[in-house]
């Protein structure tokens, strides 16, 4: 057992507010070049601050040292394998950062006139077209800021669609495997969640769906492949049942990386799709954003799309087409945020689509599924010194093969080795891997959700399988090692209960 502290552990956390000294600074204000005036006359005292905001007082070198220093307390995708299920942590090409930083994109004001932002509008239009083609749904709005924001757009669209037909439908069906954002969104959109059961194959229980699908159902929200990493083979029948009662079918695009160029939500019968550009289309995740959640919809839902949408007009004389922001859709649900969406993310994802092309996107999905199945097979076959296999302790929860991710159950491991999925995850940190998603989906006992993505090498997948096997072998000898892990990280297990009970959410200042 490790008892000495590593250098990072010895270096205790101090915030930027605890560094520096009164009067220290980085900023130099431009010279006052207009006539000096008594600014208290320009802004009377009663409208002014009493006390200055106690922002840090630090020099530029201190700022650099501080943030570079704390950055080293992060694990990141560029440093190692990050098989976080449902999050699609694929390589983030640096080309994308380079093109997004070009001043013509980065310093373009959102209220620049359309005729002087044709490059940006053309880019957005091209991206709309590409997303329409990938999803099989013709109309796209790029506005939503993230997946959950796209979901909100989608449920509000559904509501608008029904309201426009004079119908009040309150219920939204979501499977019990759904991402938490689905039910949270439904409530925000003023509708009610009705849960659907999962069948023995990991798909939607059709009997339960038939029983609950009625004239009061507005929508079914579905992820396909679902959060178990399984493609629901009954999708055509599900679509038939849902459309049969006049409801819409919503596609949570978090798992789109499994099917690009292979199967399209529109062809499966979905009416509304959201994309996570920060997943399938490799916008870097930034430690919790920014993301981008465009939506694509069918003809019947198109009149309600959020504004604005980019439109293209071909020149009558065969010249260059022009692009504009279309604001005039009387039935639109309206706006979901300021301006046109996260354009900086569009630039990156568009660059990705242009780099890969249609064949490349398909290949990306094929390799993502290949890598997932290979890792699953490697784990299953891995034998342990005690004569057992990894699969004895971490069986696949549902199915035989998987799509781009798979879900193992840590139930037997907990029973037999006395370590939980959480302990396995914490021990993986000492092996230099980011753990998979844990305890999701909720219906799998001690769930471990693994998504390797297409950008990993076979060697990395082998090394990860070996690490899992090593941890299980170690636990068979001495579970205490995993129970107290991690040892090598900048901090060890943290007291989350205390943090929530007595919340300290800002630095106290003198």
């Amino acid at each position: 057992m490790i008892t000495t502290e590593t250098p990072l552990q010895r270096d205790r956390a101090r915030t930027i507010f605890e560094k520096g000294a009164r009067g220290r600074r980085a900023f130099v204000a431009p010279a006052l070049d207009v006539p000096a005036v008594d600014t208290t006359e320009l802004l009377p005292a009663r409208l002014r601050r009493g006390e200055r905001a106690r922002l840090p007082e630090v020099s530029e070198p201190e700022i650099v040292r501080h943030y570079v220093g704390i950055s080293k307390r992060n694990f990141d995708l560029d440093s190692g394998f990050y098989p976080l299920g449902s999050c699609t942590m694929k390589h983030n090409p640096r080309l994308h950062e380079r093109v997004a930083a070009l001043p013509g994109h980065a310093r373009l004001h959102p209220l620049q006139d359309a005729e002087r932002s044709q490059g940006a509008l053309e880019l957005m239009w091209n991206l709309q077209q590409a997303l329409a083609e990938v999803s099989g749904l013709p109309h796209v709005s790029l506005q939503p800021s993230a997946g959950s924001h796209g979901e909100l757009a989608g449920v509000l669209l559904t509501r608008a669609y029904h309201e426009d037909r004079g119908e009040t439908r309150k219920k939204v069906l979501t499977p019990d495997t759904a991402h938490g954002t689905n039910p949270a969104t439904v409530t925000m959109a003023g509708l009610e969640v009705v849960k659907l059961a999962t069948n023995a194959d990991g798909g939607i229980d059709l009997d339960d769906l038939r029983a609950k699908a009625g004239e009061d159902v507005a929508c079914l929200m579905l992820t396909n492949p679902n959060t178990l990493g399984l493609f629901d083979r009954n999708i055509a029948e599900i679509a038939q049942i849902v459309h049969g009662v006049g409801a819409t079918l919503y596609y949570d695009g978090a798992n789109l990386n499994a099917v690009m160029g292979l199967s399209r939500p529109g062809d499966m019968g979905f009416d509304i799709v959201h994309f996570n550009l920060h997943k399938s289309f490799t916008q870097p995740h930034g430690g919790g954003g920014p993301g981008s959640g465009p939506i694509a919809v069918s003809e019947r839902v198109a009149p309600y799309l959020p504004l604005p949408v980019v439109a293209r007009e071909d020149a009558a004389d065969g010249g260059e087409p022009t692009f504009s922001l279309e604001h005039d859709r009387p039935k639109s649900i309206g706006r979901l945020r300021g301006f046109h969406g996260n354009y900086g993310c569009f630039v990156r994802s568009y660059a990705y689509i242009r780099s890969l092309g249609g064949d490349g996107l398909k290949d990306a999905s094929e390799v993502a599924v290949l890598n997932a199945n290979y890792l699953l097979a490697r784990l299953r076959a891995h034998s342990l010194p005690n004569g057992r296999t990894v699969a004895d302790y971490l069986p696949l929860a549902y199915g035989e093969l998987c799509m781009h991710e798979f879900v193992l159950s840590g139930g037997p491991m907990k029973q037999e080795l006395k370590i939980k999925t959480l302990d396995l995850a914490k021990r993986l940190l000492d092996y230099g891997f980011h753990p998979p998603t844990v305890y999701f989906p909720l219906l799998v006992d001690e769930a471990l959700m693994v998504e390797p993505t297409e950008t990993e090498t076979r060697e990395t997948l082998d090394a990860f399988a070996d690490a899992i096997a090593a941890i299980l072998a170690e636990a068979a000898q001495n579970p205490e090692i995993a129970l107290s892990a991690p040892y090598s990280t900048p901090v060890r297990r943290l007291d989350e209960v205390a943090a929530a009970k007595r919340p300290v959410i800002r630095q106290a200042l003198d």
Partner: protein
Amino acid sequence: MSRYTAITAADLDAMLDAIGVDSVREMFDRQIPPAVRLDRALELPDGQAEQDVYAHLSQLAARNTSAEDELSFLGAGMYDHYVPAIVDMLIERSEFLTPYTPYQPEISQGGLQVMFEYQTAISELTGLPASNASTYDGPSAVAAAAYMAKLHNGRTRIVASAGLHPHTMQTLRTYAHGFGMDVVEVALRDGVTDAAAWEEAIDAETSAAIFAQPNFYGAVEDAAALSAAAKGGGEGDGPVGGANPVVICQADPIALGILAAPGECGVDVAVGEGQPLGNRLDFGGPSFGFFAAREEYLRRLPGRIAGETVDVDGRRGFVLTLQTREQHIRREKATSNICTAQALNALAGVVYLSWLGRDGIVELGELLLARTHYAREKLAAIPGIEKLHSQPVVREFALRLDADVAAVRRRCAADGVNPGVDVQALSGREEDRGVLLVALTERRSRADIERLADVLGAAVVAERREAVAA
């Protein structure tokens, strides 16, 4: 093998063998029914080499007129402040750029500490103790605050000042329809929220009362007076006998360096657009929305919150906390649906605020006050141009032109000057006809202001002459 993958022919054989299928095709055939398989190639342009993609994206960029290419006074929610080089350098670091949301705190202390520091900075700026770790942007933060008000008091009426940015008002209406809330708009008078109408509109059924600081037309509002009026004169002593509405202020974070902090003014929730704090214009995003509130709202805040704690050995550390508010735990009972927010943009924000520092943000604010005042007086002295209002302004002000704004802007553009935002084109309001919104940042010098006055003045004169001739 496509870009960014690494599977050789030898790898493929070994992997298929391990999986127990003969081909990739079989792997999919066993999972996806033929009826929903795409049996053709995607109709997209062929993939290109890196340098070709660069050239294409570069050509698109060249067809945009950015703030680099003209003398721009565009604002109205996003501003061309200088972004210091250290911001670019830090947000491009792999350790900040490429991780996911910090679900494993032991290996995410960097990102979590940034959130904690960011929350501290926002708390200081707003004078409110409980900040989250970011929301999407300013307008959606206002909508999220209205939802929090409904969760807090169960009421459904929103009273909103017409001084909110049109995008904020439109976003609020979209969300409010979903929440089952109604929005009542209070008009402006002399450029600021009409105090009498505001007080009149707020009743015992009012859930939230929302105003902008400074407002969309640049005017500094009397935040303390608006808060007091909304609360019927004292804490707990609500209008018409009811409990107080939640008072929400959408504030500009740069202006907050010198303006009375919302928390000092009796405001319950301060939200706003974070772009001015070290974030690029990026044609409108990504940036971030900030969201801070009084302590009593802590357990209803939307989005992520970082909190301080200790590890098993007693070392200080940070975790995502109060997660029982969140969608992945509380599902349909969550306080918001936010999962991915704007962490990297918030990092840019806190680095920028550290760079400005305690005194720098005041110096910046004072400089903007002086230059904005100078520009406003200079422009308003031109025949055919007058101030829309005479209220105090910080770095943006509205003018009324006695000429067609679109035509004037076209003339200015020909001279390489973008004089500001055509307000009616943005708001669609008839009363905004002729209104030009002019924004400054520290990047616009006195010489730039003189040039704006020359070019805009000449354009207005020319347009009026043409109008008379017609």
